[in-house]
């Protein structure tokens, strides 16, 4: 319940285009093909980012990943097993 409420609050935040929750294997809670594409690509990128951070300093770990493009801002909050991805349109 709390999960749904919070997720809804995030989804209705100003400028948010989409939210995806991904688990370790790259599976999503939605079947939309764009979502699946996003999920897979971002999962790979997050893993690469995490390994980069760890390679530089083994004591370190990735806490937040933010990709700013011309059109959108993609925010990824990683965890050991899951990823929370939020796509926002920053100009609104």
């Amino acid at each position: 319940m709390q999960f749904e409420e919070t997720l809804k609050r995030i989804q209705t935040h100003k400028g948010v285009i989409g939210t995806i929750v991904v688990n370790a294997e790259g599976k999503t809670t939605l079947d939309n093909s764009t979502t699946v594409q996003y999920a897979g690509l971002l999962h790979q990128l997050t893993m690469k980012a995490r390994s980069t951070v760890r390679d530089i300093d083994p004591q370190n770990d990735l806490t937040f990943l933010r990709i700013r493009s011309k059109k959108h801002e993609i925010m990824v909050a990683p965890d050991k097993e899951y990823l929370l991805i939020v796509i926002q349109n920053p100009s609104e």
Partner: protein
Amino acid sequence: MGIAPDITNAQPLRVITEDTCLFHYLVPAPMSPSAKSMCSETGSQDSGDGNSRTLHWDPDPSTLQLHSDSDLLGRGLRLGMAKVTQVDFPPKQSVSYSKETQTPTCTQTHTQAKPAEEEEEEEMAEPKPAEESQEEKADEEEKQEEVAPKDLTEEEKMQLLHSEEFMAFFDRGSRIVERALSERVDVCFDYSGRDLEDKEGEMQAGAKMSLNRAFSDERWSKNRVVTCLDWSPQYPELLVASYNNNEDAPHEPDGVALVWNMKFKKTTPEYTFHCQSAVMSAAFARFHPNLVVGGTYSGQIVLWDNRSNKRTPVQRTPLSASAHTHPVYCVNVVGTQNAHNLISISTDGKMCSWSLDMLSQPQDSLELVFKQSKAVAVTSMAFPLGDVNNFVVGSEDGSVYTACRHGSKAGISDVFEGHHGPVTGLSCHSAGGPVDFSHLFISASFDWTVKLWTTKSTRPLYSFEDSCDYVYDVMWSPTHPALFACVDGSGRLDLWNLNNDTEVPSASVCVNGSPALNRVRWAHSGREIATGDSDGQVLVYDVGEQICVPKADEWTRLVHTLVEINENRDEGEELAAQRLVA
């Protein structure tokens, strides 16, 4: 080096012990076992036969020399005990890296990962052709296992969602994401404007004037007209708006003043004040940050204090002949920190000056009459920058008057005629700079025009005739010497820049729904404009930097512009005079 036995002098061995001694040396085996057997068999002290073969024993135990077979074999083999030195070679270290790539390739079940896996399989298959079939089979099985759980069933989903780890993750992740979402800082902003070149049309239009906030309150401002606006001198984000009565709600107070806050995103007013009579003018008391002054329709002047918890005024002027008995359209606090007065003028021409501590009686009052008989129906008032004595007033009959408060000629001095309708707004030039333009002022009127005047001449310098409706208010920019804003009844907010063009406004925006805009006020920074409309809404616009920020040469350019305007005016008048004569 062994002791070389003297063979010639050797004596035969005499076995002392009975044990058999087997000596394994790297020597050729004794040719005949008879010597040994002889030793063992006899066991007697007598060695027996004179054997040609003799074993020479060296009694010294450290060195032993056997010279068996030496005669027989005649080889002269010498055995020596060698000193053994321990040498230990460490095993050859094979350098190996224990790091592995951390991107596990086998856990990717995504469709894109599948071809990668297949490629791997192919590579693996090549060097081991013999086991190809087996590997393929194994991989296919793996693939099948991975493909199967790709789509989560509802049950699995619900299970996952309620698992502890998921909830912990989501709690943390959503918290961070919400914070990040709310940050609206644009780190990629390019001040050089190169970004803006890409998005030409939109940005340029928006760069002139853009709506920043719209303030209105369901209960207090709906169905009321905004009668006055003022920005706070202490807190640049505070704005007071006064409203007249709500005809649809007779039980609500007739007069309302709301203090709005620009800094925060909340949509409700900071402070709500009301009083019994419609408020026609309001102002922040300049040297008292907590006080808001209001002039009402009944002639009363009210004072609200935001330190008190009351929404009703803390002080009121009396409704008597010594004060005002007509609507007060102008209130202003003039002077310095130590010597200031509240000036109020009502529509019957009476001007009173008050002390903010004591509103029970005016300190001074003055009847503004023109030519000793005609009372001036004052609708607007303005003080030039830095002046506390001289001021200008606009009246309902379309004329503008200059007046002084004190001195021998207290009262109306000059009349400026030019407007054909009641004067609705007045503004004295207030942008300080290298050149002093404080003799300039502008007036707005019902005759659809805005006129530029100088106190040195009773005829208008210029008339701005771009509007198609009553012009309700006008104000000079506090920072830019050649810029002023005006609003009219068709919902238009115009910005005029005298240095650019005097024929048309430099920027113009039309408010949604085209309500009549009653008031316009520049913020003290000169970057924002607030307008109040007839629907009770206060709109705050951001003015683009290119327009509102003055360049260093604006003052000198204005001098030239004024000279031009003057010349044109004189020419125009000459032509008119010639025509009259002719």
